Protein backbone atom coordinates (compact mmCIF):
# COMPACT_ATOMS: atom_id res chain seq x y z
CA UNK A 1 0.00 0.00 0.00
CA UNK A 2 1.25 3.42 -0.93
CA UNK A 3 -0.51 6.74 -0.64
CA UNK A 4 0.77 9.78 -2.48
CA UNK A 5 -0.29 13.29 -1.55
CA UNK A 6 0.56 15.95 -4.06
CA UNK A 7 0.91 19.67 -3.47
CA UNK A 8 2.02 21.71 -6.47
CA UNK A 9 2.55 25.47 -6.46
CA UNK A 10 4.49 27.70 -8.90
CA UNK A 11 6.96 25.11 -10.04
CA UNK A 12 7.42 23.61 -6.56
CA UNK A 13 6.05 20.15 -6.00
CA UNK A 14 5.80 18.35 -2.67
CA UNK A 15 4.88 14.66 -2.70
CA UNK A 16 4.15 13.14 0.68
CA UNK A 17 4.57 9.37 0.55
CA UNK A 18 3.17 6.91 3.06
CA UNK A 19 3.34 3.12 3.09
CA UNK A 20 5.59 0.81 1.09
CA UNK A 21 7.32 1.66 -2.17
CA UNK A 22 7.76 -1.79 -3.74
CA UNK A 23 7.16 -3.67 -7.01
CA UNK A 24 3.39 -3.27 -6.79
CA UNK A 25 3.31 0.39 -5.76
CA UNK A 26 6.36 1.79 -7.59
CA UNK A 27 4.43 2.21 -10.89
CA UNK A 28 1.93 4.47 -9.06
CA UNK A 29 4.70 6.83 -7.98
CA UNK A 30 6.32 6.67 -11.40
CA UNK A 31 3.04 7.75 -12.99
CA UNK A 32 2.33 10.41 -10.39
CA UNK A 33 5.76 11.95 -10.88
CA UNK A 34 5.84 11.81 -14.68
CA UNK A 35 2.33 13.26 -14.84
CA UNK A 36 3.25 16.40 -12.93
CA UNK A 37 6.90 16.86 -13.85
CA UNK A 38 6.16 19.47 -16.49
CA UNK A 39 7.38 22.91 -15.41
CA UNK A 40 8.52 21.74 -11.98
CA UNK A 41 11.86 23.14 -10.84
CA UNK A 42 11.92 21.81 -7.29
CA UNK A 43 10.52 18.41 -6.42
CA UNK A 44 10.46 17.35 -2.76
CA UNK A 45 9.62 13.81 -1.67
CA UNK A 46 8.61 13.61 1.98
CA UNK A 47 9.20 10.07 3.23
CA UNK A 48 8.31 10.49 6.90
CA UNK A 49 5.58 7.85 6.62
CA UNK A 50 7.37 5.61 4.14
CA UNK A 51 8.32 2.31 5.76
CA UNK A 52 10.07 0.45 2.96
CA UNK A 53 11.69 0.96 -0.44
CA UNK A 54 12.43 -1.99 -2.72
CA UNK A 55 14.68 -2.07 -5.76
CA UNK A 56 11.70 -1.27 -8.01
CA UNK A 57 11.11 1.81 -5.87
CA UNK A 58 14.77 2.78 -6.14
CA UNK A 59 14.45 2.59 -9.92
CA UNK A 60 11.62 5.16 -9.82
CA UNK A 61 13.69 7.44 -7.58
CA UNK A 62 16.62 7.11 -9.97
CA UNK A 63 14.46 8.05 -12.98
CA UNK A 64 13.05 11.00 -11.04
CA UNK A 65 16.57 12.10 -10.08
CA UNK A 66 17.69 11.93 -13.71
CA UNK A 67 14.65 13.80 -14.97
CA UNK A 68 14.88 16.51 -12.30
CA UNK A 69 18.63 16.94 -12.84
CA UNK A 70 17.72 18.42 -16.25
CA UNK A 71 15.16 20.91 -15.00
CA UNK A 72 15.80 21.61 -11.32
CA UNK A 73 16.32 19.77 -8.08
CA UNK A 74 15.02 16.68 -6.35
CA UNK A 75 15.17 16.65 -2.57
CA UNK A 76 14.28 13.79 -0.29
CA UNK A 77 13.14 14.60 3.19
CA UNK A 78 12.39 12.89 6.52
CA UNK A 79 13.85 9.50 5.64
CA UNK A 80 13.43 6.92 8.40
CA UNK A 81 16.19 4.60 9.53
CA UNK A 82 15.16 1.52 7.52
CA UNK A 83 14.87 3.45 4.29
CA UNK A 84 18.10 5.37 4.98
CA UNK A 85 19.91 2.08 5.40
CA UNK A 86 18.55 0.92 2.04
CA UNK A 87 19.79 4.17 0.46
CA UNK A 88 23.22 3.72 2.03
CA UNK A 89 23.58 0.06 1.12
CA UNK A 90 22.64 0.65 -2.51
CA UNK A 91 24.78 3.78 -2.84
CA UNK A 92 21.69 5.91 -3.50
CA UNK A 93 22.67 8.15 -0.60
CA UNK A 94 25.56 9.34 -2.79
CA UNK A 95 23.43 10.45 -5.73
CA UNK A 96 20.29 11.69 -3.98
CA UNK A 97 19.97 14.93 -2.04
CA UNK A 98 18.69 13.77 1.33
CA UNK A 99 17.82 16.29 4.04
Amino acid at each position, binding site marked *: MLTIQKAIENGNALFTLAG*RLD*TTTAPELEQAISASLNGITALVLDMAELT*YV*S*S*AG*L*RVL*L*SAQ*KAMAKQGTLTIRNVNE*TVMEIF*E*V*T*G*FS*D*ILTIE
Partner: protein
Amino acid sequence: MITNLSIIDLINCLFIAAGIGICWLCFLQISSSQHLEKKVQLYFQLFFLLILLYISTHLARQLMDGLPGEGWRVALYAVTFVEILAAGFMAHMMSLLILSVTKPKHATRAIFITLFVLLCTHAAILIVGLFTDCIYHFDEANVYHRSSGYLLSNLCPLAMLAIDIVLLVRHPKCVSRRVLIAFWIYMIAPVIAIVIQSFSYGIQFIIIATVCSAVYMFSVIVRSLNDRYAKQQVESSRIETELNMASSIQADMLPSIYPAFPDRPEFDIYATMDPAKEVGGDFYEFFLVDDDHLCMVMADVSGKGVPAALFMMASKIILANNAMLGKSPAQILTDTNAAICSNNREEMFVTVWLGILELSTGKLTAANAGHEYPVLKKADGRFELVKDKHGFVIGGMNGMKYKEYELQLEPGSKLFLYTDGVPEATDAAQELFGTDRMLAALNENTSVDPEAILKQVRRAVDAFVEDAPQFDDLTMLCLEYRGDVAHA
Protein backbone atom coordinates in the same frame (compact mmCIF):
# COMPACT_ATOMS: atom_id res chain seq x y z
CA MET B 1 -64.09 -12.92 -20.23
CA ILE B 2 -61.89 -13.12 -23.31
CA THR B 3 -63.74 -15.82 -25.15
CA ASN B 4 -64.15 -14.20 -28.50
CA LEU B 5 -60.51 -14.21 -29.63
CA SER B 6 -60.12 -13.84 -33.36
CA ILE B 7 -57.56 -15.83 -35.34
CA ILE B 8 -55.35 -12.76 -35.53
CA ASP B 9 -55.49 -12.25 -31.78
CA LEU B 10 -54.62 -15.89 -31.32
CA ILE B 11 -51.61 -15.60 -33.61
CA ASN B 12 -50.47 -12.47 -31.75
CA CYS B 13 -50.83 -14.19 -28.38
CA LEU B 14 -48.83 -17.17 -29.68
CA PHE B 15 -46.10 -14.84 -30.98
CA ILE B 16 -45.91 -12.98 -27.71
CA ALA B 17 -46.02 -16.11 -25.56
CA ALA B 18 -43.21 -17.61 -27.61
CA GLY B 19 -41.29 -14.35 -27.27
CA ILE B 20 -41.72 -14.36 -23.50
CA GLY B 21 -40.49 -17.94 -23.32
CA ILE B 22 -37.45 -17.23 -25.49
CA CYS B 23 -36.54 -14.14 -23.50
CA TRP B 24 -36.72 -16.03 -20.21
CA LEU B 25 -34.54 -18.80 -21.61
CA CYS B 26 -31.96 -16.26 -22.73
CA PHE B 27 -32.14 -14.44 -19.41
CA LEU B 28 -31.44 -17.68 -17.55
CA GLN B 29 -28.70 -18.69 -19.95
CA ILE B 30 -26.85 -15.40 -19.43
CA SER B 31 -26.37 -16.10 -15.73
CA SER B 32 -24.70 -19.41 -16.60
CA SER B 33 -22.37 -18.01 -19.29
CA GLN B 34 -19.03 -18.19 -17.50
CA HIS B 35 -16.95 -16.39 -20.08
CA LEU B 36 -19.05 -13.23 -20.06
CA GLU B 37 -17.78 -10.30 -18.06
CA LYS B 38 -20.03 -9.33 -15.19
CA LYS B 39 -20.75 -6.00 -16.90
CA VAL B 40 -21.78 -7.65 -20.17
CA GLN B 41 -23.93 -10.16 -18.27
CA LEU B 42 -25.75 -7.41 -16.43
CA TYR B 43 -26.20 -5.51 -19.65
CA PHE B 44 -27.84 -8.41 -21.47
CA GLN B 45 -29.96 -9.36 -18.48
CA LEU B 46 -31.32 -5.83 -18.38
CA PHE B 47 -31.78 -5.91 -22.12
CA PHE B 48 -33.85 -9.09 -22.08
CA LEU B 49 -35.85 -7.92 -19.08
CA LEU B 50 -36.76 -4.80 -21.05
CA ILE B 51 -37.83 -6.87 -24.06
CA LEU B 52 -39.87 -9.05 -21.70
CA LEU B 53 -41.48 -5.98 -20.22
CA TYR B 54 -42.14 -4.59 -23.67
CA ILE B 55 -43.81 -7.65 -25.14
CA SER B 56 -45.66 -8.57 -21.93
CA THR B 57 -47.25 -5.16 -21.72
CA HIS B 58 -47.99 -5.40 -25.43
CA LEU B 59 -49.73 -8.73 -24.86
CA ALA B 60 -51.58 -7.35 -21.87
CA ARG B 61 -52.87 -4.45 -23.94
CA GLN B 62 -54.00 -6.78 -26.72
CA LEU B 63 -55.90 -8.95 -24.26
CA MET B 64 -57.46 -6.13 -22.26
CA ASP B 65 -58.36 -4.03 -25.27
CA GLY B 66 -62.09 -3.26 -25.27
CA LEU B 67 -62.81 -4.60 -21.79
CA PRO B 68 -65.37 -2.27 -20.23
CA GLY B 69 -65.13 -0.41 -16.95
CA GLU B 70 -63.05 2.26 -15.25
CA GLY B 71 -60.65 -0.29 -13.70
CA TRP B 72 -59.67 -1.79 -17.06
CA ARG B 73 -59.36 1.71 -18.45
CA VAL B 74 -56.73 2.70 -15.86
CA ALA B 75 -54.91 -0.59 -16.40
CA LEU B 76 -54.92 -0.08 -20.18
CA TYR B 77 -53.45 3.38 -19.87
CA ALA B 78 -50.78 2.07 -17.47
CA VAL B 79 -49.60 -0.88 -19.60
CA THR B 80 -49.56 1.20 -22.77
CA PHE B 81 -47.45 3.82 -21.03
CA VAL B 82 -44.99 1.19 -19.77
CA GLU B 83 -44.90 -0.49 -23.17
CA ILE B 84 -43.85 2.61 -25.08
CA LEU B 85 -41.48 3.69 -22.31
CA ALA B 86 -39.79 0.25 -22.43
CA ALA B 87 -39.38 0.63 -26.19
CA GLY B 88 -37.47 3.87 -25.53
CA PHE B 89 -35.23 2.20 -22.94
CA MET B 90 -34.50 -0.66 -25.36
CA ALA B 91 -33.42 1.78 -28.04
CA HIS B 92 -31.27 3.57 -25.47
CA MET B 93 -29.53 0.38 -24.36
CA MET B 94 -28.83 -0.59 -27.96
CA SER B 95 -27.28 2.82 -28.57
CA LEU B 96 -25.11 2.48 -25.45
CA LEU B 97 -23.95 -0.94 -26.65
CA ILE B 98 -23.02 0.42 -30.07
CA LEU B 99 -21.37 3.45 -28.49
CA SER B 100 -19.27 1.21 -26.26
CA VAL B 101 -18.08 -0.99 -29.12
CA THR B 102 -17.48 1.74 -31.71
CA LYS B 103 -15.63 3.99 -29.25
CA PRO B 104 -15.63 7.10 -31.44
CA LYS B 105 -12.47 9.12 -30.79
CA HIS B 106 -14.25 12.40 -30.34
CA ALA B 107 -17.63 13.23 -28.93
CA THR B 108 -18.15 9.99 -26.97
CA ARG B 109 -19.24 12.09 -24.05
CA ALA B 110 -21.41 14.35 -26.19
CA ILE B 111 -23.16 11.34 -27.75
CA PHE B 112 -23.63 9.80 -24.33
CA ILE B 113 -25.30 12.97 -23.05
CA THR B 114 -27.41 13.31 -26.23
CA LEU B 115 -28.67 9.75 -25.77
CA PHE B 116 -29.58 10.46 -22.18
CA VAL B 117 -31.39 13.67 -23.14
CA LEU B 118 -33.30 11.76 -25.85
CA LEU B 119 -34.35 9.15 -23.28
CA CYS B 120 -35.57 11.84 -20.89
CA THR B 121 -37.41 13.61 -23.72
CA HIS B 122 -39.06 10.33 -24.66
CA ALA B 123 -40.29 9.88 -21.10
CA ALA B 124 -41.45 13.50 -20.96
CA ILE B 125 -43.41 13.16 -24.22
CA LEU B 126 -45.09 10.03 -22.88
CA ILE B 127 -46.05 11.71 -19.61
CA VAL B 128 -47.54 14.66 -21.51
CA GLY B 129 -49.31 12.18 -23.79
CA LEU B 130 -50.74 10.33 -20.81
CA PHE B 131 -52.53 13.44 -19.63
CA THR B 132 -53.48 14.97 -22.98
CA ASP B 133 -54.25 11.83 -25.01
CA CYS B 134 -52.21 13.33 -27.82
CA ILE B 135 -50.32 10.07 -28.56
CA TYR B 136 -52.92 7.36 -28.03
CA HIS B 137 -56.31 7.18 -26.39
CA PHE B 138 -59.01 4.73 -25.51
CA ASP B 139 -62.55 5.43 -26.61
CA GLU B 140 -65.70 4.96 -24.53
CA ALA B 141 -65.57 1.22 -25.16
CA ASN B 142 -61.95 1.14 -23.95
CA VAL B 143 -60.68 0.37 -27.45
CA TYR B 144 -57.12 1.53 -28.29
CA HIS B 145 -56.72 4.28 -30.91
CA ARG B 146 -53.65 6.17 -32.10
CA SER B 147 -53.99 9.93 -31.73
CA SER B 148 -52.79 12.59 -34.10
CA GLY B 149 -49.47 12.92 -32.24
CA TYR B 150 -48.69 9.20 -32.34
CA LEU B 151 -45.47 9.76 -34.29
CA LEU B 152 -44.11 11.82 -31.38
CA SER B 153 -43.71 8.60 -29.38
CA ASN B 154 -41.39 7.25 -32.08
CA LEU B 155 -39.37 10.41 -32.40
CA CYS B 156 -36.70 9.77 -29.74
CA PRO B 157 -36.22 6.04 -30.41
CA LEU B 158 -35.84 6.85 -34.10
CA ALA B 159 -33.30 9.57 -33.30
CA MET B 160 -31.31 7.04 -31.26
CA LEU B 161 -31.55 4.59 -34.15
CA ALA B 162 -30.19 7.28 -36.46
CA ILE B 163 -27.23 7.81 -34.10
CA ASP B 164 -26.61 4.03 -34.10
CA ILE B 165 -26.59 3.94 -37.88
CA VAL B 166 -24.19 6.87 -38.16
CA LEU B 167 -21.85 5.28 -35.60
CA LEU B 168 -21.88 1.90 -37.34
CA VAL B 169 -21.37 3.41 -40.77
CA ARG B 170 -18.46 5.52 -39.59
CA HIS B 171 -16.79 2.72 -37.60
CA PRO B 172 -17.43 -0.43 -39.64
CA LYS B 173 -14.25 -2.13 -38.42
CA CYS B 174 -14.94 -1.89 -34.69
CA VAL B 175 -16.42 -5.39 -34.45
CA SER B 176 -16.21 -8.60 -36.41
CA ARG B 177 -18.36 -8.94 -39.53
CA ARG B 178 -20.71 -11.36 -37.84
CA VAL B 179 -21.44 -9.04 -34.95
CA LEU B 180 -21.86 -6.10 -37.31
CA ILE B 181 -24.44 -8.01 -39.37
CA ALA B 182 -26.28 -8.94 -36.16
CA PHE B 183 -26.40 -5.27 -35.18
CA TRP B 184 -27.86 -4.30 -38.54
CA ILE B 185 -30.43 -7.09 -38.41
CA TYR B 186 -31.48 -6.00 -34.94
CA MET B 187 -31.98 -2.41 -36.10
CA ILE B 188 -33.58 -3.12 -39.47
CA ALA B 189 -35.79 -6.12 -38.65
CA PRO B 190 -38.32 -4.15 -36.53
CA VAL B 191 -38.55 -1.49 -39.24
CA ILE B 192 -39.32 -4.12 -41.89
CA ALA B 193 -41.82 -5.71 -39.49
CA ILE B 194 -43.58 -2.39 -39.08
CA VAL B 195 -43.81 -2.02 -42.87
CA ILE B 196 -45.26 -5.53 -43.27
CA GLN B 197 -47.56 -4.90 -40.33
CA SER B 198 -48.97 -1.77 -41.90
CA PHE B 199 -50.14 -3.83 -44.90
CA SER B 200 -51.61 -6.68 -42.90
CA TYR B 201 -53.11 -4.83 -40.02
CA GLY B 202 -53.50 -7.01 -37.02
CA ILE B 203 -50.62 -9.45 -36.83
CA GLN B 204 -47.85 -8.08 -34.59
CA PHE B 205 -44.78 -9.01 -36.61
CA ILE B 206 -42.79 -6.46 -34.66
CA ILE B 207 -42.83 -8.64 -31.55
CA ILE B 208 -41.39 -11.69 -33.26
CA ALA B 209 -38.91 -9.56 -35.23
CA THR B 210 -37.64 -7.82 -32.07
CA VAL B 211 -37.28 -11.03 -30.09
CA CYS B 212 -35.65 -13.06 -32.84
CA SER B 213 -33.16 -10.38 -33.84
CA ALA B 214 -32.30 -9.69 -30.18
CA VAL B 215 -31.67 -13.38 -29.53
CA TYR B 216 -29.60 -13.63 -32.70
CA MET B 217 -27.54 -10.60 -31.70
CA PHE B 218 -27.03 -12.01 -28.23
CA SER B 219 -25.91 -15.41 -29.51
CA VAL B 220 -23.49 -13.86 -32.01
CA ILE B 221 -21.92 -11.64 -29.36
CA VAL B 222 -21.61 -14.50 -26.88
CA ARG B 223 -20.09 -16.70 -29.56
CA SER B 224 -17.51 -14.09 -30.50
CA LEU B 225 -16.65 -13.51 -26.81
CA ASN B 226 -16.26 -17.27 -26.35
CA ASP B 227 -13.97 -17.44 -29.37
CA ARG B 228 -11.87 -14.65 -27.94
CA TYR B 229 -11.72 -16.43 -24.58
CA ALA B 230 -10.62 -19.65 -26.24
CA LYS B 231 -7.88 -17.76 -28.08
CA GLN B 232 -6.70 -16.20 -24.83
CA GLN B 233 -6.55 -19.65 -23.25
CA VAL B 234 -4.31 -20.89 -26.07
CA GLU B 235 -2.15 -17.79 -25.79
CA SER B 236 -1.76 -18.02 -22.02
CA SER B 237 -0.85 -21.69 -22.16
CA ARG B 238 1.76 -20.83 -24.79
CA ILE B 239 3.18 -18.13 -22.51
CA GLU B 240 3.19 -20.58 -19.63
CA THR B 241 5.18 -23.12 -21.65
CA GLU B 242 7.64 -20.43 -22.67
CA LEU B 243 8.02 -19.23 -19.10
CA ASN B 244 8.74 -22.76 -17.92
CA MET B 245 11.40 -23.11 -20.60
CA ALA B 246 12.84 -19.70 -19.70
CA SER B 247 12.87 -20.76 -16.07
CA SER B 248 14.96 -23.85 -16.81
CA ILE B 249 17.26 -21.94 -19.18
CA GLN B 250 17.86 -19.44 -16.41
CA ALA B 251 18.47 -22.15 -13.83
CA ASP B 252 20.94 -23.80 -16.20
CA MET B 253 22.89 -20.55 -16.46
CA LEU B 254 23.80 -20.76 -12.78
CA PRO B 255 26.37 -23.28 -11.59
CA SER B 256 24.36 -25.99 -9.90
CA ILE B 257 26.38 -29.18 -9.87
CA TYR B 258 27.81 -29.96 -6.46
CA PRO B 259 30.40 -30.49 -5.31
CA ALA B 260 31.35 -27.77 -7.76
CA PHE B 261 35.10 -28.30 -7.60
CA PRO B 262 35.65 -31.86 -6.37
CA ASP B 263 39.36 -31.68 -7.15
CA ARG B 264 39.92 -28.50 -5.13
CA PRO B 265 40.21 -29.31 -1.44
CA GLU B 266 41.06 -25.69 -0.53
CA PHE B 267 37.45 -24.59 -0.51
CA ASP B 268 33.85 -25.69 -0.64
CA ILE B 269 31.08 -23.60 -2.14
CA TYR B 270 27.31 -23.95 -2.34
CA ALA B 271 24.61 -21.63 -3.70
CA THR B 272 20.89 -21.63 -4.43
CA MET B 273 18.46 -19.37 -6.24
CA ASP B 274 14.75 -19.51 -5.62
CA PRO B 275 12.81 -17.08 -7.83
CA ALA B 276 9.49 -15.67 -6.57
CA LYS B 277 8.02 -15.97 -10.06
CA GLU B 278 8.90 -18.41 -12.85
CA VAL B 279 11.99 -16.41 -13.67
CA GLY B 280 13.85 -14.01 -11.43
CA GLY B 281 16.33 -11.19 -11.35
CA ASP B 282 18.75 -12.59 -8.78
CA PHE B 283 21.85 -14.44 -9.73
CA TYR B 284 25.02 -15.84 -8.29
CA GLU B 285 28.12 -16.96 -10.05
CA PHE B 286 31.40 -18.60 -9.17
CA PHE B 287 34.20 -19.79 -11.37
CA LEU B 288 37.96 -20.09 -11.38
CA VAL B 289 39.57 -17.19 -13.22
CA ASP B 290 42.82 -19.11 -13.13
CA ASP B 291 44.26 -21.90 -11.02
CA ASP B 292 44.64 -19.68 -7.98
CA HIS B 293 41.72 -17.27 -8.22
CA LEU B 294 38.08 -17.97 -7.49
CA CYS B 295 35.61 -15.30 -8.61
CA MET B 296 32.30 -15.07 -6.74
CA VAL B 297 29.34 -12.88 -7.65
CA MET B 298 26.05 -12.21 -5.92
CA ALA B 299 23.66 -9.87 -7.73
CA ASP B 300 20.10 -8.61 -7.70
CA VAL B 301 18.36 -6.87 -10.60
CA SER B 302 15.74 -4.23 -9.84
CA GLY B 303 12.22 -5.53 -10.38
CA LYS B 304 11.03 -9.08 -10.97
CA GLY B 305 9.81 -11.47 -13.60
CA VAL B 306 10.70 -11.51 -17.29
CA PRO B 307 12.21 -7.97 -17.56
CA ALA B 308 14.47 -8.65 -14.58
CA ALA B 309 15.41 -12.07 -15.98
CA LEU B 310 16.45 -10.62 -19.35
CA PHE B 311 18.48 -7.90 -17.68
CA MET B 312 20.01 -10.49 -15.36
CA MET B 313 21.20 -12.61 -18.29
CA ALA B 314 22.89 -9.63 -19.94
CA SER B 315 24.56 -8.43 -16.71
CA LYS B 316 25.74 -11.90 -15.84
CA ILE B 317 27.44 -12.40 -19.18
CA ILE B 318 29.07 -8.94 -19.20
CA LEU B 319 30.31 -9.41 -15.62
CA ALA B 320 31.72 -12.86 -16.35
CA ASN B 321 33.40 -11.70 -19.56
CA ASN B 322 35.08 -8.83 -17.71
CA ALA B 323 36.11 -11.07 -14.83
CA MET B 324 37.63 -13.68 -17.14
CA LEU B 325 40.01 -11.04 -18.48
CA GLY B 326 41.74 -11.08 -15.09
CA LYS B 327 40.75 -7.53 -14.10
CA SER B 328 40.48 -6.40 -10.50
CA PRO B 329 37.01 -6.41 -8.87
CA ALA B 330 36.69 -2.59 -8.97
CA GLN B 331 37.71 -2.54 -12.62
CA ILE B 332 35.25 -5.32 -13.48
CA LEU B 333 32.38 -3.35 -11.90
CA THR B 334 33.46 -0.06 -13.50
CA ASP B 335 33.66 -1.62 -16.97
CA THR B 336 30.42 -3.57 -16.54
CA ASN B 337 28.65 -0.38 -15.47
CA ALA B 338 29.93 1.45 -18.53
CA ALA B 339 28.80 -1.37 -20.84
CA ILE B 340 25.31 -1.60 -19.31
CA CYS B 341 24.78 2.17 -19.14
CA SER B 342 25.54 2.54 -22.83
CA ASN B 343 22.26 0.78 -23.63
CA ASN B 344 19.76 0.99 -20.84
CA ARG B 345 16.69 2.96 -21.83
CA GLU B 346 14.49 1.14 -19.32
CA GLU B 347 16.77 2.39 -16.55
CA MET B 348 17.09 -1.01 -14.96
CA PHE B 349 19.97 -1.57 -12.59
CA VAL B 350 21.64 -4.38 -10.73
CA THR B 351 23.33 -4.50 -7.35
CA VAL B 352 26.48 -6.60 -7.41
CA TRP B 353 28.92 -7.90 -4.86
CA LEU B 354 31.96 -9.33 -6.57
CA GLY B 355 34.95 -10.87 -4.89
CA ILE B 356 38.05 -12.66 -6.05
CA LEU B 357 39.67 -15.05 -3.61
CA GLU B 358 43.35 -15.93 -3.91
CA LEU B 359 43.16 -19.58 -2.96
CA SER B 360 46.84 -19.97 -2.00
CA THR B 361 46.82 -17.09 0.51
CA GLY B 362 43.16 -16.58 1.47
CA LYS B 363 43.28 -12.95 0.40
CA LEU B 364 39.82 -11.83 -0.73
CA THR B 365 39.57 -8.69 -2.89
CA ALA B 366 36.03 -7.46 -3.28
CA ALA B 367 33.97 -4.55 -4.54
CA ASN B 368 30.38 -3.75 -3.78
CA ALA B 369 28.01 -1.99 -6.17
CA GLY B 370 25.03 -1.23 -3.96
CA HIS B 371 24.61 -4.80 -2.77
CA GLU B 372 23.82 -6.14 0.71
CA TYR B 373 26.65 -6.42 3.25
CA PRO B 374 28.49 -9.73 3.00
CA VAL B 375 28.67 -11.91 6.10
CA LEU B 376 31.99 -13.35 7.29
CA LYS B 377 32.81 -15.93 9.89
CA LYS B 378 36.41 -15.93 11.03
CA ALA B 379 38.03 -19.28 11.70
CA ASP B 380 36.91 -19.51 15.31
CA GLY B 381 34.35 -16.74 15.42
CA ARG B 382 30.72 -16.20 14.59
CA PHE B 383 29.04 -14.91 11.46
CA GLU B 384 29.15 -11.10 11.36
CA LEU B 385 28.19 -8.45 8.83
CA VAL B 386 31.09 -6.85 7.02
CA LYS B 387 30.11 -3.19 6.69
CA ASP B 388 32.00 -2.69 3.49
CA LYS B 389 32.27 0.45 1.39
CA HIS B 390 29.41 0.69 -1.07
CA GLY B 391 29.46 2.09 -4.56
CA PHE B 392 26.37 2.96 -6.57
CA VAL B 393 24.29 0.26 -8.26
CA ILE B 394 25.41 -0.92 -11.71
CA GLY B 395 23.47 0.50 -14.66
CA GLY B 396 22.23 3.44 -12.62
CA MET B 397 24.60 6.12 -13.71
CA ASN B 398 27.20 6.47 -16.39
CA GLY B 399 30.86 6.97 -15.43
CA MET B 400 30.63 5.50 -11.92
CA LYS B 401 33.89 4.37 -10.38
CA TYR B 402 34.07 1.55 -7.85
CA LYS B 403 36.50 0.97 -5.01
CA GLU B 404 37.71 -2.37 -3.78
CA TYR B 405 38.77 -3.63 -0.39
CA GLU B 406 40.57 -6.65 1.00
CA LEU B 407 39.63 -9.25 3.60
CA GLN B 408 41.90 -11.98 4.90
CA LEU B 409 40.31 -15.42 5.12
CA GLU B 410 41.99 -17.93 7.39
CA PRO B 411 41.43 -21.65 7.00
CA GLY B 412 38.02 -22.35 8.56
CA SER B 413 36.56 -18.99 7.52
CA LYS B 414 33.14 -18.92 5.93
CA LEU B 415 31.67 -16.25 3.70
CA PHE B 416 27.91 -15.88 3.25
CA LEU B 417 26.42 -13.83 0.41
CA TYR B 418 22.72 -13.21 -0.18
CA THR B 419 20.23 -10.94 -1.90
CA ASP B 420 17.68 -8.72 -0.21
CA GLY B 421 15.08 -11.49 -0.55
CA VAL B 422 16.56 -12.96 2.64
CA PRO B 423 16.55 -10.01 5.08
CA GLU B 424 13.42 -8.61 3.44
CA ALA B 425 11.38 -11.80 3.54
CA THR B 426 8.10 -10.63 5.01
CA ASP B 427 5.65 -12.41 7.26
CA ALA B 428 1.87 -12.02 7.19
CA ALA B 429 2.11 -9.04 9.57
CA GLN B 430 4.43 -7.21 7.13
CA GLU B 431 7.42 -7.59 9.44
CA LEU B 432 10.81 -8.06 7.80
CA PHE B 433 13.06 -11.04 8.55
CA GLY B 434 15.97 -8.66 8.98
CA THR B 435 19.72 -9.20 9.19
CA ASP B 436 19.62 -9.94 12.93
CA ARG B 437 17.42 -13.00 12.46
CA MET B 438 19.59 -13.96 9.47
CA LEU B 439 22.77 -13.80 11.58
CA ALA B 440 21.07 -15.80 14.34
CA ALA B 441 20.14 -18.50 11.81
CA LEU B 442 23.71 -18.57 10.45
CA ASN B 443 25.15 -18.90 13.94
CA GLU B 444 22.80 -21.74 14.89
CA ASN B 445 25.53 -24.13 13.92
CA THR B 446 28.66 -22.60 12.41
CA SER B 447 30.64 -25.78 11.97
CA VAL B 448 28.54 -27.45 9.25
CA ASP B 449 29.35 -27.33 5.53
CA PRO B 450 28.07 -24.56 3.18
CA GLU B 451 25.07 -26.59 1.95
CA ALA B 452 23.87 -27.15 5.52
CA ILE B 453 24.42 -23.46 6.35
CA LEU B 454 22.09 -22.42 3.51
CA LYS B 455 19.48 -24.98 4.62
CA GLN B 456 19.70 -23.54 8.12
CA VAL B 457 18.91 -20.03 6.85
CA ARG B 458 16.19 -21.26 4.52
CA ARG B 459 14.48 -23.10 7.37
CA ALA B 460 14.56 -19.97 9.52
CA VAL B 461 13.11 -17.85 6.69
CA ASP B 462 10.35 -20.39 6.03
CA ALA B 463 9.49 -20.61 9.72
CA PHE B 464 9.35 -16.81 9.89
CA VAL B 465 7.17 -16.08 6.85
CA GLU B 466 4.93 -19.13 7.44
CA ASP B 467 2.00 -18.89 5.00
CA ALA B 468 2.79 -15.46 3.53
CA PRO B 469 3.57 -15.83 -0.19
CA GLN B 470 7.23 -15.56 -1.21
CA PHE B 471 7.49 -12.06 -2.59
CA ASP B 472 11.11 -11.68 -3.66
CA ASP B 473 13.71 -13.95 -5.17
CA LEU B 474 15.70 -15.78 -2.50
CA THR B 475 19.34 -16.32 -3.36
CA MET B 476 22.24 -17.36 -1.13
CA LEU B 477 25.83 -18.46 -1.46
CA CYS B 478 28.21 -19.84 1.12
CA LEU B 479 31.94 -20.38 0.76
CA GLU B 480 34.08 -22.27 3.18
CA TYR B 481 37.79 -21.57 2.93
CA ARG B 482 39.91 -24.49 4.09
CA GLY B 483 43.29 -23.10 3.15
CA ASP B 484 45.98 -24.40 0.96
CA VAL B 485 45.69 -27.96 2.32
CA ALA B 486 47.56 -29.45 -0.60
CA HIS B 487 50.72 -27.61 0.35
CA ALA B 488 50.21 -27.56 4.08
